């Protein structure tokens, strides 16, 4: 049966003004693994479009006996605040907070991070600064903040260019204030030092570009790069988008292998 029956505990953690909503998926079996997993979502319109996939992933990991925490960044999802009040620096603190919260709730000593899109970029950065995280799985990470902004801006123009104004820097329904744009602009993983981490990078495009493959392979000391063509569910109409079954399968297997 697919739900697996493992309980999900929704809760708020952190403190005002950054109270964060989380869903703790308890491990299905009796002997939980000593490493927990924190899932790092994308932001903006990509967040709500990818919720279904993140939920599926959490469920699969819980069936593999992991403690799993899905959570919403400040100003995103069910968490407190508005998106314009948060940004990259805050979201990285939120990930750190989520790691500590899962350790407290589970008695896990170590935590693996899984990130999607901008969440992957943030996860890598947080992992590099922490002693309790050494395993990171990244799905379609944002390698260049500038490219990311132009990509979502183009989608916005295509779908909403003719509707209303874009006065407050709105992209696909979410505000991108100058401060956030500046932070995004500063993201360039190609020029970043490689931390001593075990990293899986999944590229779901039909064919990886040479440059993104090269950049991905240099993201950390030990990178397993895989091109697994799949649906780009984070930009698709959520009622039509598919869960990337093969990518999830490989991702879960990779984490299982590394985390006892």
């Amino acid at each position, binding site marked *: 049966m697919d739900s697996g029956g493992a309980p999900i505990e*929704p809760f708020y953690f952190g403190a005002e003004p950054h109270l964060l909503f989380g869903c703790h998926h308890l491990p299905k079996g009796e002997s939980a693994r000593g490493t927990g997993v924190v899932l790092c979502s994308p932001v903006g319109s990509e967040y709500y479009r990818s919720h*279904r996939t993140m939920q599926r992933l959490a469920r699969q990991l819980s069936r593999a006996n992991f403690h799993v925490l899905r959570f919403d960044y400040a100003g995103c*999802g*069910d968490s407190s605040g508005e998106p314009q009040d948060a940004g990259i620096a805050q979201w990285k603190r939120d990930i750190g907070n989520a790691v500590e919260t899962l350790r407290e709730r589970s008695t896990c000593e170590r935590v693996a991070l899984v990130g999607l899109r901008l969440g992957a970029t943030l996860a890598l950065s947080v992992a590099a600064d922490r002693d309790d995280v050494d395993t990171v799985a990244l799905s379609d990470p944002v390698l260049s903040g500038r490219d990311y902004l132009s990509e979502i801006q183009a989608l916005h123009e295509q779908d909403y260019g003719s*509707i*209303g104004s874009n006065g407050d820097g709105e992209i696909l*329904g979410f505000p991108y204030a100058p401060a956030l744009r500046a932070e995004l602009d500063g993201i360039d993983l190609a020029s970043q030092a490689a931390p001593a981490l075990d990293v899986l990078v999944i590229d779901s495009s039909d064919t990886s570009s040479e440059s993104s493959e090269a950049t991905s392979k240099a993201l950390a000391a030990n990178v397993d790069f895989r091109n697994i063509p799949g649906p780009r569910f984070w930009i698709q109409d959520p009622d039509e988008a*598919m869960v990337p079954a093969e990518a999830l399968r490989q991702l879960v297997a990779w984490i299982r292998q590394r985390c006892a």
Partner: protein
Amino acid sequence: MRLEERAIVFGRESNLIGVLTKPTAEREAGANVAVIVLNAGLLHHVGPNRISVAIARRLAELGFPVLRFDFSGIGDSSPRSDRSPFAESAMTDVSEAMEWLQAETRAERFILTGICSGADISFRAAIADERVAGVALMNAQGYELDTSDEVHADVKQRKDLRYYLTDALFNPRSWKKVLTGKSDYLDIGRLVGGRLRSKLAGESLPESERLVGELRSLLDRGTRLLILYSEGDTGLDYLRTNVGSQLPQLQAHPGMELDVLRHTDHVFTPRKTRNELLERVIKWMEFLDWRAGDDSSELPAAAEILANGRTR
């Protein structure tokens, strides 16, 4: 008072997950009313463009407790153990949400709201349960949980099938497959694709009588209806096809309001139009004021909108 939200698990099977936003203001009139925001299609309880969060927080400021939650098998909520079809389980879920709110807050009556399938289920739940005092329906697609192919065919022929999965939502067979995990998500697309082809081949046979009867009985019962559409939405075609000629009569009832929002899409993506939507709902809720009996309201020229398919 500060905004306070609580993550909750409820329902007889403890499978339903949601967030209760507590009222941040005292309220005299309507103190026994709580609001429930339902899922839009497959999207979880945060809603497209975070709209359900915005609705909850804004209405809490007006003094209403608001619950947003996920139906069984959608978003954060697990499927029910009996694997009942979506059309059944969603109705049970709404009942359990009302029971939970009744026990936790002073609520005795409820406002249900939702976009797309969330609107359709709000409508169904209102018919089934007299505790529902009002429904704010946004881009309702069919007002049905199990619509015949023929009814839809008429609408489908008019418009591209952008929201075709709505049909899957109301097709118990496809949901059963998804929720039991016997198919992966890919299969639902194929299944619905098959249904659509047969629909498009079908001939038009509008079933307006039942819908008009249901609308009228809700109004006669005293349930308030706010029916909102994005300009050009397929659901508006459906309503025009099935209720069009009867609309002036329905419109004459003070309990019904219908409006069309311009320059937006099916899920109110442009932020400006989300705010307009919210203000429209608030205006509706404030003027209701939850006193028994009727009150006079200015009704929008919905008949004209329906006839022309667009606002001026």
